[in-house]
């Protein structure tokens, strides 16, 4: 028998110590350094490997930039399971036909990406020319996957299972939803699913009281996958980390996600947007995410963004932009009519714009700040109303 190798270790380093810092732009614009410990990283690597049953035979796609928390599953869960992680060159992500060929030649079994990358793969990857039977999991997260594209991708990869992975960078992943067959024509947004076994979720109102069953509220989570705090920002820690007695005199820490969710009758959580995306425009409270949901519900809308633009008088007003689904035509008048049927007049974005493409952040999310900045610097036009 071989002697155990002697591994040098730092006697002052324990699993609660800092392992890495991920910078997230957040929704407010100032980058925040999210500090993860060895424990939180490993806890998520384990839960992902367990949930999806990764083994040494798996070959995982890895194309998230290092600063994006999708990369932690690609690097840590694969290592934990003894799987192979295949780093996808940037050029392949830009050229979906090359990416599809790479999936085939590398015999990838797990794809994990933002919905936008998977949508490009579906629309431009010439998937019907490739043998992609090696793929057994398609995982996605970071932002909502438009249901009609998800359904089409499921039809194109009939041998794969699909899962929505949800969790802010501060807590890695905390819920998942294994996608069942999606009925044709069912375009309602998909849920974020149910919490992992070792995760407690609470849905609370503005006074931190539990909401009634089926009511939307802010999601608070208690999980071993949680960050230690924000790098050099105790002020942000105080807001994002909420200590509460759990038993006896002992307290534990919950993370305020800032995400609004609702628990459906079947226990699945639905994502209802960001809490801090509520703006007050001319005295009216407007949930920008709710406005986007209504915009996106028009059958011809591919993607939608609603954003607040400052006025000269210090107030804000809501503007909007949409891209149109391939093969559809959409006029602004038709879109306005659709919005007027569901939204109060003050919440209808004006001006509304049809764009060829949405500006995107480095992590592939719609860049609403870039849209707002673009409008702020645009020449002022006479208001026609």
């Amino acid at each position, binding site marked *: 028998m071989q002697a155990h190798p002697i591994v040098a270790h730092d006697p002052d380093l324990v699993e609660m110590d800092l392992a890495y810092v991920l910078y997230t732009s957040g929704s407010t614009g100032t980058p925040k350094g999210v500090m993860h410990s060895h424990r939180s990283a490993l806890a998520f690597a384990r839960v992902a490997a367990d949930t999806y049953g990764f083994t040494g035979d798996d070959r995982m796609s890895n194309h998230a930039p290092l600063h994006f928390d999708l990369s932690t599953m690609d690097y840590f869960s694969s290592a934990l399971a003894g799987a192979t992680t295949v780093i996808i060159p940037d*050029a392949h992500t*830009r*050229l*979906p036909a090359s990416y599809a060929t790479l999936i085939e030649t590398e015999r990838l079994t797990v794809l994990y990406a933002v919905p936008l*990358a998977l949508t*490009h793969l579906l629309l*431009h990857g010439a998937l019907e*020319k490739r043998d992609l039977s090696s793929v057994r999991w398609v995982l996605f997260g970071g932002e909502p996957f438009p249901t009609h594209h998800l359904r089409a991708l499921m039809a194109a990869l009939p041998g794969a299972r699909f899962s929505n992975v949800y969790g802010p960078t501060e807590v890695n992943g905390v819920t998942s939803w294994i996608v069942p067959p999606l009925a044709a024509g069912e375009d309602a947004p998909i849920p974020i699913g149910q919490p992992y076994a070792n995760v407690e979720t609470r849905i609370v109102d503005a006074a931190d009281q539990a909401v009634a069953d089926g009511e939307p509220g802010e999601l608070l989570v208690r999980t071993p996958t949680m960050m230690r705090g924000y790098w050099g920002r105790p002020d942000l820690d105080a807001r994002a980390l909420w200590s509460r007695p759990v038993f006896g005199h002992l307290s534990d820490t919950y993370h305020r996600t800032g995400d609004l969710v609702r628990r459906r009758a079947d226990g699945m959580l639905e994502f209802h947007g960001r809490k801090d995306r509520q703006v007050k425009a001319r005295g009216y409270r407007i949930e920008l995410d709710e406005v986007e949901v209504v915009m996106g519900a028009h059958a011809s809308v591919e993607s939608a963004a609603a954003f607040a633009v400052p006025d000269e008088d210090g107030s804000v007003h809501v503007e909007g932009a949409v891209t149109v689904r391939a093969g559809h035509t959409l006029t602004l008048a038709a879109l306005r009519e659709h919005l007027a049927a569901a939204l109060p007049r003050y919440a209808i974005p004006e001006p509304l714009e049809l764009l*060829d*493409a949405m500006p995107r952040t480095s992590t592939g999310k719609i860049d609403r700040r870039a849209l707002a900045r673009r409008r702020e610097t645009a020449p002022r036009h006479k208001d026609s109303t």
Partner: protein
Amino acid sequence: MLGSGLLDSLSVMSLVHYIEQETNVAVPAEDVTIEHFVSLAAIEAYLARRGAR
């Protein structure tokens, strides 16, 4: 172009659309690959093979 980060996936699609209109050559999705689009010379060689004038 691809290596320099000049093109993202959306501008690749716009470029393909432009090429199709200018040259009257249909570029099928499976041909929009790194080998064919890595540089201007590569695009030119690809289009020549496809019979563009």
